[in-house]
């Protein structure tokens, strides 16, 4: 980590977004993670994405569990409320927060230990409830804070820094999320900003559970030969299924795309995601095909990245349970208390 205080100095001609804010307005505190940590690149991508879609920082709530990844919400969006909860339990906190106020944007940051092990149950249930949030797993296949134990996303046969070989099958969170019904699922690499930033922008505009698995090598404990989550290994085996290009609702679509080479998906708020096809047969709107494709690539030892599944039509939790449009946390006595006459009627019915 760095020891210097983050300077408040900013270039006077930094570009401003639709809210008149610069990138600096989306930053957080100085990171305390190891120098070169993939997680810091993800924080930078979140900052850039939020700034570019002109997200009002205070209308975002950022939540996390425990672990290196879960520390990162401190390092972006300092004007947002944050909740650093307990290990593996962020999904339930996010569920309650979202139920209380459907008008905020929710960003959940978790790690592979937090999501694939201790919090696997909570993760699964947040997905199947179609919670409207963006959920990022910063996936490095190792327990960094406790110094390098193998995690449940470590590949079978992968070797830890001290030479321990993983004897168990890996949990693939991307396939799991698709299977459980997430309406937006992506995988990216912390070293691939070109792919990650537009993916985050699309996820932020998506209504429903948007899951992104970001492979984020641990420079200290999982970046050696024998690791399948090292920078070198991921770069060599990364197979991009598509390259997302996000067009916010207010921007005119100027570029024209070859219909055969792109998937165009219009999101709930009217913004558009163009997915430049890199793999001819792949259709990210067909859930069965997606699961097959993922398995195929896995068999070949490849790491498929891109927006692997998207369905903007699926209802999110509030639509499913039919809550009022007004955030529940803004309702008052007048809206909520049935009053004395109703109580007298209840008393009478109990006699």
């Amino acid at each position: 980590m760095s020891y210097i205080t983050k300077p408040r100095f900013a270039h006077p001609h930094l570009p401003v977004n639709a809210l008149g804010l610069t990138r600096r307005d989306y930053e957080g505190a100085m990171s305390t993670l190891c120098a070169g940590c993939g997680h810091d690149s993800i924080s930078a991508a979140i900052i850039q994405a939020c700034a570019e879609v002109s997200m009002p920082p205070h209308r975002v709530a950022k939540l996390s569990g425990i672990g290196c990844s879960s520390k990162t919400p401190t390092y972006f969006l300092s004007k947002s409320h944050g909740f650093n909860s307990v290990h593996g339990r962020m999904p339930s906190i996010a569920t309650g927060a979202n139920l209380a106020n459907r008008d905020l944007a929710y960003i959940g940051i978790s790690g592979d230990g937090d999501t694939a092990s201790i919090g696997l149950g909570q993760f699964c249930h947040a997905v199947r409830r179609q919670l409207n949030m963006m959920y990022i797993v910063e996936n490095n296949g190792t327990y960094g804070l406790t110094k390098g134990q193998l995690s449940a996303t470590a590949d079978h046969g992968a070797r830890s820094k001290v030479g321990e070989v993983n004897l168990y099958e890996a949990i693939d969170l991307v396939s799991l999320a698709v299977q459980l019904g997430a309406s937006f699922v992506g995988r990216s690499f912390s070293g691939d900003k070109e792919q990650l930033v537009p993916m985050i922008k699309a996820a932020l505009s998506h209504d429903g559970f948007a899951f992104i698995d970001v492979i984020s090598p641990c420079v200290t404990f999982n970046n050696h030969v024998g690791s399948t989550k090292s920078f070198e290994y991921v770069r060599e085996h990364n197979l991009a299924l598509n390259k997302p290009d996000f067009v916010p609702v207010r921007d005119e679509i100027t570029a024209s795309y070859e219909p055969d080479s792109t998937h165009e998906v219009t999101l709930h708020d009217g913004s558009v995601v163009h997915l430049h096809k890199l793999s001819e047969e792949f259709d990210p709107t067909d859930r069965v095909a997606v699961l097959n494709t993922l398995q195929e690539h896995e068999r070949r030892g490849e790491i498929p990245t891109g927006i692997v599944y998207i369905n903007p039509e699926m209802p999110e939790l509030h639509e499913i349970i039919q809550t009022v449009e007004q955030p529940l946390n803004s309702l008052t006595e007048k809206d909520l208390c049935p009053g004395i006459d109703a109580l007298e009627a209840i008393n009478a019915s109990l006699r």
Partner: protein
Amino acid sequence: MPELASINEFVIKFANVNGTGSASANGLFAKSVFRMGVPVSPRNIFPSNIQGLPTWYEVRVSESGHLGRRGGVDIMVAMNPQSFQEDYESVLPGGYLLYDSTKPLDTGPLRKDIRWIGIPLTRICLAEYADPKQRQLFKNIVYVGALAALLDMEFEGLTGLVGDQFKGKEKLIAPNVHALELGYQYAHEHFECPIGITVRRSDAAGDRILVDGNSAAALGAVYAGATVAAWYPITPSTSLVDAFSSYCERLRLDPGTGQKKFAIVQAEDELAAMGVVIGAAWNGARSFTATSGPGVSLMSEFLGLAYFAEIPVVLFDIQRGGPSTGMPTRTQQADLLAAAYASHGDTRHVLLFPEDPHEAFEFAAQAFDLAERLQTPVIMMSDLDLGMNDWTTRPFEWDPERVYDRGKVLDAEALEKAADWGRYLDVDGDGIGYRTYPGTHPEKGAYFVRGTSHNEYARYTEAGEPYVRVMNRLLEKFETARELVPNPLVEGSTQGDSLQGVLYFGTTSASVREALESLQAEGVELDTMRLRAFPFSKEVRAFIERHRTVFVVEMNRDAQLRSLIVNDLEIDPAKLVPVLHYDGLPVTSRFIHDSITGHLAPGARAGRGRGPQRALTGSEKSE
């Protein structure tokens, strides 16, 4: 043989097979007594089973308003061959046994000291109904009809109730009324009616209502403006969220759109249920969960977070028999310590102890005000007896002028004016800081809530000094809680000058009061105090200090309330004598009476053995 005789004062117990439709018939009986203006307290003693195991329904009928269990059975309706032997043995001498006389009984030598009332229920139903299901269901209704004749009850009351019960399913009314008539007529034709025990119209019940504690608490949550409920099914708390759901469906739909002004999540487990509640509370919605002991164990991690991060959650603990899965369908007050100190590290939580459904409604509503005022978890300690049984209780009350106390929350305007805001700064000297909800102000009021050590500005710190400051402020906040929670009540007619006192709380209260009346009639005067919350107020200390011996009545093995008192008030344990009952059934007034008399008897204090001094412990002979 002298037969028991009384008017409006008796205990009747129904022994049935689970899943045979007896519950609604027995409920019909209890409610019809209540409709005659007589206080009743019915209790379901049921197995953890859907069909086939024995189940009992014990109804205390008491003109004088004694609603606790008395002990002993005056009339037994023995419908279950599996439990027949123990059922008939439990009838008090001079009592009555109503049984199905279709087939001869294969018991041993029959008791001569009780009156046998045989009604061929199976034969009557075989003759009357063709459908096997009806033959089973109506047997129950037939014995209720017979009881109406035997006890001289108002028959029209019963038929009126049947009408209420089957509103919307009118075609069921006539056959049910017919079944009642069959029993009524059979009893009149074959026995001298009424028997010695009768029910007579009264005004003793007054304006009271008949309702269970879980429904009452749920309604309290509705009135208090709770909008988010998350839960995981567990007996005996499930019906609380069910009731919240059905009240909300009636009272909380937007009239224009039909959309819901509430959200209920059936979570994947109790951990997640508490997580949802914490997330919603942090984000400014009143939210709660309901569970029982096993759920409290699972929620402990999150309760520690809510304590340390200061998030106002409300938890209803409907206690059952522990430890572990314990006695899932029996009652206890054995989660006190687990709830009061839930979670690792130094934690302590506010507890509320309602005694009946009226108070369950009131405390449920108050729990939200207290939680938000104190920014901490508030746990209402109910139990299976209160939660799942119908109680004759004072009607629900609500002040139309009542305003929710949302506690210290800064809105955008207040943040604009605030000079040096820190989430955990104690500016008022009551140990409570000012919260902000996410999304309030573009520039001000954002902070990071966390379970890690933090300073007054919610920033992570590993420094000892700010950590100690925060921990000490939480203690000051607990002292504020001591002032705000419901005060203990001094009850009963004898007060102030006895050397002995009694402390009690929750659902033992009715039995304690009855026991004290009987002790008083025998010349034993005791002062009383009913505790209604933890932490304990100064009055509790004063009460204990004023007496030489203080009996502490509770339903657990380890005298948990006594431990809480000793720990919270730093009281000499020697003068606190436990009266402990923990067989899973609600304590009876006779047990409390005998425990206290046993202790007060000359020479009774010697040779008590190890552990805390005990008046009398454990269970009573099964009745």
